[in-house]
């Protein structure tokens, strides 16, 4: 296997972004947010959207967790595992770049 092919791992220091060819856009016909990717369309729910919208390549996972804790009025420790697991799953599906 080539060296460039490594599975990426999400940590609190990662600054995730959506790859150039993955688009998050509002669909006026269905009045819902759609995530467009090669050959597939996803319909993320509100909790997923709150995370994906913060994947701007400049914000660390730690800062995303902090912001969500404020917004949801929840403890960071409660959210951290879920947010990291979510981003790892989306990274494994090549929809998020850490």
């Amino acid at each position, binding site marked *: 296997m080539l060296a460039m092919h*490594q599975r990426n791992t999400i940590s609190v220091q990662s600054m995730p972004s959506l790859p150039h060819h993955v688009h998050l*856009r509002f669909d006026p016909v269905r009045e819902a947010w759609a995530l467009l990717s090669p*050959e597939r*369309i996803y319909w993320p729910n509100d909790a997923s959207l709150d995370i994906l919208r913060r994947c701007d390549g400049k914000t660390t996972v730690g800062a995303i967790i902090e912001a969500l804790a404020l917004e949801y009025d929840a403890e960071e420790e409660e959210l951290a595992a879920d947010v990291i697991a979510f981003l790892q799953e989306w990274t494994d599906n090549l929809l998020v770049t850490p």
Partner: protein
Amino acid sequence: MNATYFPPVSMLAELTHRCPLQCPYCSNPLELLKANREHDTQTWLRLFDEAADLGVLQVHLSGGEPTLRPDLEEMVARLASRGVYTNLITAGVLIAEGRIRALAEAGLDHVQLSIQGARPETTQRISNYRGAHEKKLETARLVRAAGLPLTINAPIHRHNIDQVGEFIELALSLDAERLEIANVQYSGWALLNRNALMPSREAVDRQTEIVEAARERLRGIMNIDYVTPDYFAIYPKPCMGGWARDAFMVAPDGTVLPCHAAQTIPWLSFERFGDRSLREIWNDSPAFNAFRGTDWMQQPCRSCERREIDWGGCRCQAMAIAGDAAATDPACVKSPLHARMAQLVEEALATAGSDSANTTFVYRRIAPVREPV
């Protein structure tokens, strides 16, 4: 039947039936259209606008070979301006220098490149095109150099099923992020060549093991889509995600179809974009309403708990094997004709003999046009 249907999310645009390759399992119909039957640029652009208005979010630009249309960049640019995701499905052998970069600049989002064999001699033999393999590898490099994500599509049958492991390595070496191991679906040209293409159950089982192990090993590195072979299945596939449920296709002359092979159902008639709007065809066309939802189903589908999982399977396979487009897809273990699938495999293998090199194919070609009487 003017109820509120869900709008379609995706559309496959077969811009042309012209293609330099002659693969004997082509999903185009047996009666291929010549260039003079293709819609012009302005009609395609109007169709894309109507599709976007209707709710289409993703357009697959296919053929034939879509890059034979010199107006492809214009089409991509129009779709991109509407926020529609564009996917180019190409054979990758005749693409002029600079074209891939121009398409990327026009806003193309993704390229799917077909490769017929993991070895040059297999690609050449199946596509019946000299040097096809090397040209395809060069196209893959140009796609990645233009910054576009790449899917390799590998149509699988008896003559390359033992190369699945090599396909996986090839796709990795081309820096593809997706690989489709797509077992041939037996309609159209593939049905005509079924005896020449059908793999054995042992080969299918080996393939499944290789793909499952690779998926585990390559998690987060390359996605592998495994399109399993219907003739060895227990349950059918939800063909097109259900008839006229969220996708449709358009033939080069603008005929709007629920699926590739829909024209093999003899009592359905299909309408052309231009004669009617896309919205009218999607909502009201008798052909689109023929198998929509579950009301049309017979037993065992009608009372099956999977009826909204696989939507009765493939209507065209029911037509081809059961002789009734409203029957349960014989790929389903609950179909009274399910045993026929295994028989057809046996017949194919008995006819084929053991020597792959001696197999002859009916290659895909445009036949002389039959003039109307």
